[in-house]
């Protein structure tokens, strides 16, 4: 890991020293162990603040839309897919962007780590290539990173950035797409699916962190914030409204969602949101053979029409 960290710092330092960019967006150590925070580095001497480890989970593509200044950005595979998807939607000007690509082997889920430590306070943590050393007041524990990965990272199919100006390390091996989880959920009865989703969404507090964390959610006025007309009830106590909110939020990402998992990672209530987003990723793949944010020349799945597009939704006659 430290090799990548040094390479990221060097790349940032060079970019800033040569005045190629105005700011480098990367990660810095957060105020707590196992926390990284997005960092905005403007001077070459600040570049040493940049870190790279298994807690750099935010999707930095969120900071790149409609920016005038020249930006250097440190990206993982998922961030790069979001960047590519946003470039296609004319939200990012590639000429103003310098992409420092980092092959990513997955980020850890702090909730799983906390469970493994039985809720005991972690006062220090150290990430190595494949293990995590946790220290508390009266314990020390080593866990394998692969055992505590975020679900989106464990299922990731694009660990290596799909677009970059510079790659700071060797590419890692990719794995195949597997929709077994969604297929299993589809196979359940309507009542079972309803029951599971209403239980999950009963936890929703309508903080809209999922919306804000999503790089693809950028409407200037979101339908949930409208009051005239009020498209959806604002109270989190009505589960049907929570479901409607998620249905619309998820559907806005149809054919655009890159399954980066930022929504689920941002959720403070631990709601299983990828059960919804991945359904649409799977549908887009199956119906239109479309994968968001992978190739610049691919047309957006729902903005193009071909006369031979499948139409399984039509009333059967």
């Amino acid at each position, binding site marked *: 890991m430290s090799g990548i960290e040094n390479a990221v710092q060097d790349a940032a330092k060079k970019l800033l020293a040569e005045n190629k960019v105005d700011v480098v967006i990367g990660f810095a150590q957060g105020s707590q162990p196992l926390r990284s925070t997005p960092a905005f580095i403007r001077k070459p001497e600040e570049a040493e603040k940049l870190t790279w480890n298994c807690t750099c989970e935010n999707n930095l593509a969120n900071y790149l839309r409609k920016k005038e200044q020249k930006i250097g950005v440190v990206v993982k595979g998922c961030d790069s897919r979001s960047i590519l998807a946003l470039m296609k939607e004319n939200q990012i000007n590639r000429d103003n962007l310098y992409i420092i690509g980092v092959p990513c082997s997955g980020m850890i889920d702090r909730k799983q780590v906390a469970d493994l430590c039985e809720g005991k306070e972690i006062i220090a943590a150290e990430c190595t290539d494949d293990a995590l050393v946790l220290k508390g007041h009266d314990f020390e524990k080593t866990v394998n990173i692969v055992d505590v990965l975020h679900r989106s990272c464990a299922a990731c199919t694009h660990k290596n950035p799909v677009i970059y100006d510079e790659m700071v390390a060797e590419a890692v091996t990719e794995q195949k797409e597997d929709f077994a989880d969604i297929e299993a*959920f*589809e196979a359940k009865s*309507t*009542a079972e*699916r*309803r*029951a599971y*989703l*209403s*239980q999950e969404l*009963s936890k929703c507090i309508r903080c809209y962190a999922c919306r804000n964390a999503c790089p693809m959610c950028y409407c200037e006025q979101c339908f949930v914030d409208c009051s005239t007309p009020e498209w959806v009830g604002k109270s989190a106590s009505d*589960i*049907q409204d929570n*479901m*409607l909110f998620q*249905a619309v939020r*998820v*559907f806005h990402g*149809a*054919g655009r969602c890159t399954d980066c998992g930022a929504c689920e990672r941002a959720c403070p209530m631990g709601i299983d949101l990828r059960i*919804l987003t991945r*359904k*649409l990723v799977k*549908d*887009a793949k199956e*119906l239109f053979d479309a994968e968001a944010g992978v190739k610049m020349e691919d047309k957006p799945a*729902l903005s193009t029409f071909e006369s031979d597009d499948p139409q*399984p*939704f*039509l*009333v059967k006659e």
Partner: protein
Amino acid sequence: MLKSLLEYMGVDEGRVNFSWVSASEGGRFAELVGEVTEKVKQLGPNEGLIDKKAGCCGCQE
């Protein structure tokens, strides 16, 4: 994809219907609407996305 998502989320199968009908095909439109109305009548009133009998979150009220 919308129909597929809604049915996945628990809207009764057959409650969401789509078709292409040209403005000049009045007869076909009436026929389709008739069919859909019949189908929805068979499904009965829409109970919404959550099972009210089972309480808000699957708990028994």
